[in-house]
């Protein structure tokens, strides 16, 4: 461990951060002073090399230290960040198998997407701003992943949210795009509200937000204070994880906070690929697996996570079937695939969740970049109704897109097949609070969603690339083409989408084929999940009774059965999609549309959820704000309260004004009377004029007099106020024992 160059961890973050700062500060200058080509070259070279450095460092640390060196945990203490009293939040970084997987995916995919962007954004006037934001995003995402303290993770968590906001609204002159960015930020903030409260709940029990400290407390299982302490009558682990999961639904676009993601497609397409498909939106899954030992202690939360994930997977998939915007289809697909990951995480199949996170990053990034290529070629048109036949002019894009479709649909032997299969098997065979009901539900939802996935993905493919072009002639002859800088990343990603599945070679396939490959990812992540794997009783995570469990594995027959079902379903719906859309919109497709009627309408309009939120949340909020301001603030507080007081004072002023009539003689009289009264008071009652010990002594000799009365003296006291015939006497009573001040 001595030779470990730990400062590398910080540089993984600092490299893209420096790139961002450079382009934010000097990018504008370069774009204005240098010739356009040179300026763009400076900008993207800085940005790309910043990410390349991060990528190189990630791979070298991973390979040299973790793989070759055999070190599984690397901690870098940077500096104490926030501290007060017993609270101590260090800005510390942690590289363990889980964060290693994440940084490899993030920097790897990130690098490819940076390169792709050079082509996609080639003519944008705000080139420097784009790359600065993209670099800033990389830095934030790496902070999120590498943070050892959950609060450091939260910095990245909000940082990626900010970059997402900036990049969705990148073309801010378009009001709708700016609004989409704002919507994303606000919905994420709703999630963050849960996240931070979850942290407080954890903190109150653990007295630290350090992941290791939380793990140490959670390791006690049923005896852990996370379980034995209750907040609002519910174990803290459950409260905290539910709140954290709210944060996950915001960041990872799950029900109920998913509606921002489809709108986020307003951003440049490479951004959608990087942020809204491959990396940022998976942060919620990462968080759950990072805290798997806390979630495992909250069976209720786990069940909710699984159900929300499963329902989201199906719900979003059914919307994806009817959309016409190429990016909207992919967006709903992302929501759906994220749902799978949560389904896995909720069942305790941590490895499956991370596995799918990784494979999804490859094929979905490839799909998005492919769509970007198409959109660029079609003159920034995104409507698949006016596309078709693009394969003839864009063979590489079409090929990589097709491979990715195979992968996401779960066709053997592409990556998605393995990861999705592992999730579905896990959903059926893992123990849960509500087993076996939840197993049937999770598996059922997942399988139906898989059918939808195959259908809408191939629908998208065929409508875009096959058949004949449905757009205008001019676009077809002058625009449709491919650019090398854009297809190189596509090919690499398609390759990864093809082979990544072999990292999770299932046990059963080894038995059947005789090819005994290890489940690399499971072994790699073993230290991360070790704590929760030891839990027993109600907190047990793993295969359940009656779930075809045998010898720590699912039986070969059952596993092959599950594979067969999901593969069969995928192939059937692939072929069906080809039949309906293989050559444009077929008559049969139209017939189905009519047959489904209202159901089709509902899917097309995304089940009117946006409208529902507008009516239930947005409008009441605006109304409440107006009410508070116009009615309460202006009328009640300022009008009746302050205004009333002012009015009273004004009225009193009017009364007193009688004496201020400018008559000097009357003033003089009043003055003399006043002086006389003062003199009489001072000399008539020396206890008031000066604080002589004797006077105080007299007061102190009456211990029964407490409070204010002490200063007033021991005599009975009354105030008389009168105007004309009206007279009021305020009698403060005799100085009797206990009459004033006193005890409660």
């Amino acid at each position, binding site marked *: 461990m001595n030779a470990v160059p730990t400062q590398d961890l910080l540089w993984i973050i600092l490299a893209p951060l420096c790139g961002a700062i450079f382009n934010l500060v000097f990018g504008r200058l370069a774009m204005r002073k240098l010739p356009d080509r040179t300026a763009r070259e400076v900008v993207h070279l800085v940005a790309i090399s910043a990410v390349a450095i991060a990528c190189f460092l990630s791979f070298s640390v991973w390979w040299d230290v973790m793989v070759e060196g055999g070190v599984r945990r690397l901690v870098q203490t940077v*500096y104490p960040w926030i501290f007060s009293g017993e609270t101590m939040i260090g800005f510390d970084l942690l590289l363990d198998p889980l964060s290693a997987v994440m940084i490899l995916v993030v920097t790897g995919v990130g690098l490819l997407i940076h390169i792709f962007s050079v082509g996609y954004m080639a003519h944008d006037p705000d080139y420097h701003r784009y790359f600065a934001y993209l670099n800033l995003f990389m830095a934030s995402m790496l902070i999120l992943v590498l943070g050892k303290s959950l609060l450091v993770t939260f910095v990245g968590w909000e940082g990626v949210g900010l970059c997402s906001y900036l990049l969705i609204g990148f073309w801010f002159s378009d009001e709708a795009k700016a609004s989409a960015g704002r919507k994303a930020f606000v919905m994420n903030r709703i999630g963050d509200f849960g996240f931070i409260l979850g942290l407080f709940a954890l903190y109150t029990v653990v007295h630290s937000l350090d992941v290791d400290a939380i793990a140490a407390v959670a390791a006690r299982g049923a005896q852990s204070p996370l379980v034995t302490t209750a907040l609002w009558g519910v174990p803290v682990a459950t409260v905290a994880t539910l709140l954290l999961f709210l944060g996950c639904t915001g960041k990872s676009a799950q029900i109920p906070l998913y509606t921002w993601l489809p709108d986020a497609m307003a951003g440049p397409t490479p951004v959608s690929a990087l942020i809204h498909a491959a990396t940022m939106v998976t942060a919620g899954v990462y968080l759950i697996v990072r805290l798997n030992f806390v979630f495992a202690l909250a069976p209720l939360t786990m069940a909710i996570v699984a159900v929300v994930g499963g329902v989201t997977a199906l719900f979003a998939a059914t919307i994806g079937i009817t959309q016409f915007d190429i990016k909207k289809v992919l967006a709903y697909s992302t929501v759906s695939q994220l749902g799978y990951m949560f389904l896995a995480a909720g069942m305790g199949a941590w490895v499956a969740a991370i596995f799918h996170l990784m494979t999804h990053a490859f094929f979905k990034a490839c799909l998005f970049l492919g769509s970007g290529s198409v959109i660029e070629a079609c003159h920034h048109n995104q409507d698949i109704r006016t596309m078709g036949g693009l394969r003839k002019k864009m063979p590489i894009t079409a090929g990589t897109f097709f491979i990715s479709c195979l992968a996401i649909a779960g066709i053997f032997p592409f990556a998605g097949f393995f990861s999705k299969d592992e999730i579905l098997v896990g959903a059926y065979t893992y123990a849960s609070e509500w087993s076996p009901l939840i197993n049937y539900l999770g598996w059922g939802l997942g399988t139906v969603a898989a059918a939808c996935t195959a259908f809408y993905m191939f629908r998208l493919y065929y409508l875009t690339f096959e058949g004949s072009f449905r757009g205008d002639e001019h676009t077809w002859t002058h625009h449709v083409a491919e650019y090398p800088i854009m297809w190189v990343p596509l090919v690499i990603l398609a390759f990864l989408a093809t082979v990544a599945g072999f990292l999770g070679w299932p046990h059963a396939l080894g038995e059947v084929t005789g090819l005994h490959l290890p489940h690399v990812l499971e072994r790699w992540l073993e230290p991360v999940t070790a704590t929760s794997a030891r839990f027993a009783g109600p907190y047990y995570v793993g295969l359940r009774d009656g779930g075809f469990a045998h010898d720590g594995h699912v039986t070969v027959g059952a596993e092959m059965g599950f594979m067969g079902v999901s593969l069969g379903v995928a192939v059937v719906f692939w072929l069906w999609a080809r039949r309906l859309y293989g050559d444009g919109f077929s008559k049969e497709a139209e017939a189905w549309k009519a047959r489904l009627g209202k159901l089709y309408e509902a899917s097309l309009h995304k089940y009117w959820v946006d409208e529902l939120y507008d009516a239930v949340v947005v409008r009441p909020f605006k109304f409440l704000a107006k009410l508070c301001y116009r009615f309460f603030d202006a009328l009640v507080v300022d009008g009746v309260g302050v205004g009333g007081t002012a009015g009273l004072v004004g009225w009193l002023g009017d009364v007193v004004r009688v004496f201020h009539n400018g008559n000097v003689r009357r003033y003089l009289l009043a003055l003399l009377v006043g002086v006389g009264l003062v003199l009489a008071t001072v000399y008539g009652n020396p206890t008031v004029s000066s604080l002589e010990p004797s006077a105080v002594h007299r007061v102190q000799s009456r211990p029964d007099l407490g409070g204010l009365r002490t200063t007033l003296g021991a005599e009975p006291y009354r105030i008389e106020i009168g105007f004309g015939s009206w007279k009021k006497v305020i009698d403060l009573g005799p100085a009797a024992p206990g009459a004033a001040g006193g005890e409660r």
Partner: protein
Amino acid sequence: MNHLLSILLVLPVLGALTTALLPRGEDRLAKGVGLFFSGLAFLVSLPLATAFEAGRAGMQFEERHAWIDRFGIGYHVGVDGLSVWLVLLATFLTPLCIWGAWRAIDHRSREFVVSMLLLETGMIGALVALDLVLFFTFWEVMLVPMALIIGIWGSEQRVKAAIKFFLYTMVGSALMLAAIVYLAVVHYQVTKGTLSFDLADLDRVVLPPDVQALCFWAFVASFAIKVPLFPVHTWLPDAHTQAPTPGSVILAGVLLKLGTYGFIRFAMPLFPGAAAEAAQLLAILAIVGIVYGALVAYAQSDVKRLVAYSSVSHMGFVVLGIVGMTTQGLTGATYQSLAHGLTTGALFLCIGVLYERRHTRALDAFGGVAKVMPIFTAVFMIAMLGSAGLPGLVGFVGEFLIMVGTFSGSAHVLNDPPLLVLVAATGVILGAVYLLHMFQRVMFGPITHPENEKLRDLSLREQLVFAPILALIVLMGVYPKPFLETIDPSAQALAAHFTHKRCASVALARSGASRAALADDFAEACTDPMAVIRAVYGDERAPQVSGFGPAPRQEGPRAP
């Protein structure tokens, strides 16, 4: 070195006198002299940061002279971790304000500079005074120049706003003065003949519950108005909207903080028993302020009013941190004060930039500004995000400490703090809602008004005014260590002192005595202060009250 604070108090007055002697009409010269003296004051104040001994809780740079000996009124000044940064904030913002107003203030510049400098003395004085009469004097001194700045250099409704500001704050301070005098008299009695207005002396007095409550609320009346705490906040939007830019910046940046500072320095430690009793109510008012301020901010059509209401929301957090009386809460409250001073100050400067160019504050008058003013966009955005409490910027540190302290440690004064924090944290969402709403309306979208097409981006002077503020907004968010390590010991000491004195107050009430006493008399009874307090308030109630409790055991069938 020991005269540093006194020099700091005299310098602006000297500057004001010099400026007053200048011939009429020499606008630039007057502003130059003002800038020179306030800048000098800032430089002089820098040793407060560099020579301040971190890790020490007590007063530093202390200075004490007899003043009106006959009444025991002394000139006693000093700073500790809870005040030193606020003093620096005042000396930091004043020159920036004068410089920032270089073009905005174009008539009676001489009088303006005099007001600003006197205001600076008033603010610093109130922050460093350790004698209650001295404090009260400075507290009142601040009032006049501020009212003048609003009333003379403000917008259309300036006079009304100035009067509202003046009367509102006067009402509060009148009550406070009565309480101060009362406290001194009681001190005179219990010490059998020592008349003193020194904070350290008066702090030894423990009042019986009823009078303590009266005195506490008298102080609170003054401070709560200044903060401003819901529902006595309505002077603020008017004052802010009508005040000229430098007035708004100083008002938001420093003046409001004096309210919360007053809570920390005076109201809470002097009357801990009453403060503990009132904590729940104050916390609820603070939280209502957080949510309500944010809601109302969203409803505004005037940018400046929007930011003014955001102050109500933000200052609610500060009060929440204070009334929970935890170390983290107090540290966070102090930090959040600084954060709010910087971010809201920057936001008001930004609005000033827009106003200077377009002479309107209506949201509708803008849109698409980002296209023509890219540098300004970056500045405005950082200020906005800092205000929204984005982690990594200054606003987050304080908010986090306040909430984590209240959530986990304030059950000794508050009922169900997790629930309170839950409601308060909605302010995090709402903050994003109204700030992003404002930003989008002003900066994004197409340019709908042709006047906006030719807006100048920030001039060099304006960039230089913003640069140090933005640098601090980022630096204090990323690396708060130098600030926290000076604030934290004082916060710890105050929290401990509060508990001890609260114990004395409880013990006094329990002893049945109706007269005030000295805290030292209860030293023996209060070796374990929390035990005494718990004995009075009931031990068994504690788990439910805090929101936390033992969980029922769960025996599930999940095992394989």
